[in-house]
């Protein structure tokens, strides 16, 4: 009984700061900006923003996959190191997360700008400056850079937990090291991949700062549009509807990914 009482503060917190705000978002999404009457107009209007929503999801997905491709070997390498080295490398992965997200993104602006560090160097070489910023590539770069630790950490902890005896068992049954990886390590790290992709995808799909700083006006993402509804267009009702739309996209994506992760253990009790 006492243990249950300990959960009360958080339950209250959750009610006040999660459930109630969510209810308010719902309320706004289904009411008219001017009259305050119940309406589906905001939801219908979402259709106009479908392409932006799709683009956001697409860029977030590409970033997630890039993070996976870059992050997996890193996580695999760290998991195989001595405990001392593991702690050091783990800290190194965490380190960027200790710095301000805004600062990190602005640093990329300083690097990539037309008159930024990289282009100035290129100009001194006598070459034409490259269009490094204000495009999708720069946005993806910003997402990958900022969210890579969220991929590496869950992968690392899952790979770490793979029982070394399973690897020995695979060797024992005739697997060379490539087969051990393909038949045992990779499938067993699938949960880490799923949670890594989710951890990267969710913040990436809703980000607005990265796209504002690194993207062009044409690469406005759903996060930017939602922000503008509240800050410049003064249409919180449409903004709320967009938030709901985004939530729906995120939930759908997570559900799809969990589907891929397959039937993990308990859920498969048969016979």
């Amino acid at each position, binding site marked *: 009984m006492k243990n249950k009482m300990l959960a009360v503060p958080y339950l209250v917190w959750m009610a006040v700061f999660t459930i109630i705000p969510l209810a308010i978002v719902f309320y706004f999404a289904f009411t008219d900006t001017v009259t305050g009457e119940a309406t589906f107009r905001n939801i219908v209007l979402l259709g106009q923003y479908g392409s932006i929503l799709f683009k956001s999801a697409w860029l977030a997905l590409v970033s997630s996959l890039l993070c996976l491709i870059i992050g997996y070997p890193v996580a695999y390498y760290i998991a195989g190191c001595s405990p001392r080295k593991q702690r050091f490398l783990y800290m190194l992965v965490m380190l960027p997360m200790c710095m301000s997200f805004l600062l990190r993104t602005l640093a990329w602006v300083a690097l990539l700008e037309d008159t930024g560090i990289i282009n100035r160097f290129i100009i001194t070489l006598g070459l034409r400056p490259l269009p490094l910023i204000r495009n999708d590539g720069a946005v993806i770069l910003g997402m990958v850079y900022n969210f890579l630790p969220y991929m590496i950490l869950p992968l690392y902890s899952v790979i770490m937990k793979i*029982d070394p*005896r*399973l690897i*020995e*068992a*695979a*060797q*024992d*049954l*005739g*697997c*060379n090291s490539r*087969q051990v990886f393909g*038949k*045992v390590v990779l*499938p*067993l790290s*699938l949960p880490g991949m799923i949670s890594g992709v989710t951890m990267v995808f969710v913040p990436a799909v809703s980000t607005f700062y990265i796209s504002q700083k690194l993207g062009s006006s044409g690469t406005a993402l759903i996060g930017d549009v939602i922000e503008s509804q509240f800050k410049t267009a003064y249409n919180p009702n449409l903004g709320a509807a967009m938030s709901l739309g985004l939530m729906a996209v995120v939930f759908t994506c997570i559900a799809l990914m969990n589907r891929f992760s397959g039937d993990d*253990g*308990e859920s*498969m*009790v*048969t*016979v």
Partner: protein
Amino acid sequence: MSKHLIDLVGVRKTFDGEDALKNINLYIRDGEFLTLLGPSGCGKTTTLRLIAGFILPTEGKILIDGQDVSNVPPYKRRVNTVFQKYALFPHLDVYDNIAFGLRIAKLSEDEIDARVNEMLEIVSLKGFENRRTTTLSGGQQQRVAIARALANRPGVLLLDEPLGALDLRLRKDMQNELKRIQQQLGITFIYVTHDQEEALTMSDTVVVMDRGHIQQIGTPEDIYNEPKNAFVADFIGESNILDGVMRDDYLVEFFGRKFKCMDKGFGKNEPVDVVIRPEDIDIVPADAGHLSGTVTSVTFKGVHYDIIVDFKGFKWLIQTTDHQPEGAHIGIKLTPDDIHVMKKTEYSGMYGDYSSYSAEYDEINDPDAVIGEEDEALPQEERDEE
């Protein structure tokens, strides 16, 4: 049965500068059930892992079928392992676990299917094909692990304490099952355990190990009846181990008494360890025995009682089916069969002591009488009371 399947020649294995195995020489015959027995840290699992190829010897050679495999990786060896905690693949069902090695070997699906079914039959797991391994009981997981290892038709099956995690009843059943499978398939089993009873029950050959050395190799009967040193005597079953002196062939003196025994070939007056198994000791009335003492504790063990008998300070363990009350004054009788003499070793004085040794034992009136000789002459009434 006589062909050497595996040879370990002068094998030494060092971990971080510490010797885990020192100069191991061992051969394993084709088709035998060999058990590596010893306490934890004795090197038995290291020996198994060397044979499997998970670790490489620091010195010496390992031969399989006469071929030096000392540096051959595990996946190229004709041996398969049943791991201590099964190590089943959690992402695969029972069928795919058993088929794992066969798929790696790129057998046709038809053949894989036939083999997996054959294995399921052998380990009595028909109908469990599509179960997740995580939903199986410990005993069932154990069977899957055995089937998975046997499916590859290895020349040798290595088993690393495979029954350690099972409860007593299941362990007994699986012991019988393993022995049956081994005999049915005629595959060589190398079995690692710290459970002496398991080793005695299942093995053709027992290898007793301690501190990185092989202490004794022999049949279960040899190991039990003729332990080579105090360690083996104590580790295999219970033993009362006494200091003695070999006065002559077939004549040993301990407790200030001379006893007939079955051992010879020691130096005259050589100090020796004398082993007396607690179940061999016959209890007789106090005045009719070779030695007499007082029962100081009685423990009911189901089949028998463990009683500790104090012979003026030196305590023996005696196992008897007749209840003796605490405080009772009893006598014991030893026949030459009951006495086993061993050479003194580094282990002498470390084991087999149910109290501290007391040299002042002088219960028997005539210190020069040779006990055991007059056994045949014992009156019938006394025999009945044994």
